[in-house]
């Protein structure tokens, strides 16, 4: 990611995160991996911005485009900032409301801790869309 991307500053803005079917469990429980970047993500967690789209649109755009999802969870820019995680605008050609949460520079243990904390916050907030039975 280039350093020039503007940082998100509205701490109340929600960041939508898709829940992959493999991370969705009985009782609407999700795994903490949902909120941790994988090696292919190069340290950035992909999210969509609530100021530019709805959770439902975010979901539909995702499942009609690049992947599978059972629903949408959310954390706010402020909640990420509380965990020393900065968020940045990252509009894509096919997804103008895309953004990134930056996990770079953290140890593996720190990434685990922050992912578990964000998942806990998001679960308590509840699903913003879905969950739909994995199909």
């Amino acid at each position: 990611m280039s350093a020039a991307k503007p940082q998100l500053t509205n701490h109340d803005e929600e960041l939508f995160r898709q829940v992959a079917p493999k991370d969705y469990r009985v009782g609407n429980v999700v795994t903490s991996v949902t909120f941790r970047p994988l090696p292919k993500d190069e340290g950035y967690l992909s999210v969509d911005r609530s100021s530019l789209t709805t959770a439902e649109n975010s979901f539909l755009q995702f499942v009609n485009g690049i992947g599978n999802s059972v629903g949408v969870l959310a954390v706010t820019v402020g909640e990420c900032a509380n965990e020393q995680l900065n968020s940045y605008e990252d509009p894509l050609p096919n997804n103008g409301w895309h953004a990134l949460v930056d996990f770079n520079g953290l140890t593996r243990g720190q990434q685990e801790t922050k992912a578990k904390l964000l998942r806990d916050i998001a679960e308590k907030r509840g699903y913003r869309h879905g969950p739909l039975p994995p199909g």
Partner: protein
Amino acid sequence: MLQPFAKLRFVGARFEDHGMPLETLPELVAYRNLIVAVAKELYRRENPDKRRLPKHFEDRIRLELRNVEGGSAAPIVERRVTRQAEIAEVAETRTPDEADRARDLVERAIEAVSTGQELPAGFPVDALAFFAPFGHSLREDEQIFISAPRPNANEVPYNKEIRNNLLLRAGETYSDDFALLAEVMSIEIQTGGWEVRLPDGQRLRPTLPLGHEEISAVAEQAPGTVFVGLRGQGTYNRNRKIEKIDALEEVTMLEPGQALVNFNTSLRQINELTQNWDGNDGVPIPVKDVDWVKRYVLNLTLVHDIPIPILFPITPNVIRSEWRVQQMDVSAEFDLSTRNVYLHSLSLETRREAELEVAADEHLSQVAAFLSVQLPEIV
């Protein structure tokens, strides 16, 4: 008249109130039979011209229990001397006979094997089998300290491990009790034949005792979800690994529970992954790798009492398990390439963290200890 023969001091939790639990009394009978067996072999060897043992040979070795010393339970074994000639000798110093030499030889054999040395010269190998019942009822934390009535006699420790090593000097295997937890792999209702798999992956085919129709019924309806506790006697090899079940005395079906059903569903889903399952061109995970994680987690669950986690793949090289118990959020990532496991624990309440990365198979106990400490006990 009676003469001191040996002191067997039993040490362990069961003996702390100085009494001999009745179920351990066969140990004294086994000790007597061992002494008699060795004495017979010594006599035969020392009297090659005699085709038979003297009449009433065993009557010459009458061992009795008249007193159990305090401290820990320490039965004093005394020998009744009946022959007039020997009674006369007792007042002076009786010449040691086969029984006395058998006692000393047994003591030296135990001492030698416990320190990894060869059996003492002259120890009759045929008598080694008589060690099987001696020490059979001892638990892991229990020992017998044996001493002869000599001035400044050393106490020779004897326990289950030494017993097993002595038996391995006679052959490739030894027999011992077992208590195992196993997964039912297949079952043949008509023949009662079934196959079980131990947490380390080893498969055994015991005969299912009668009266276990419930296990058969569940195993048939929901294969892969039945776990049983087994008790009985088995044959062990030099690596302390059970080779076969000789006698199956007790079979208990464990409650399958929703967690176990979910666990098995997850395993099936991981085994059914297809190309590009992760949206990143990921290849399916080889069954042998899934099976390794399955056996590892079951070992933690069944042997080390760790709750069943949720299980899911992250990348073609990593399978992850997670436990959430009360405010503790604990995870274990199994790297299928390196066979390392990375453990991470977080208290959502206090934010206390812990982590550990080790070679999984070599450090199973350490992994189990980490999880035991981090996961609150489920009441």
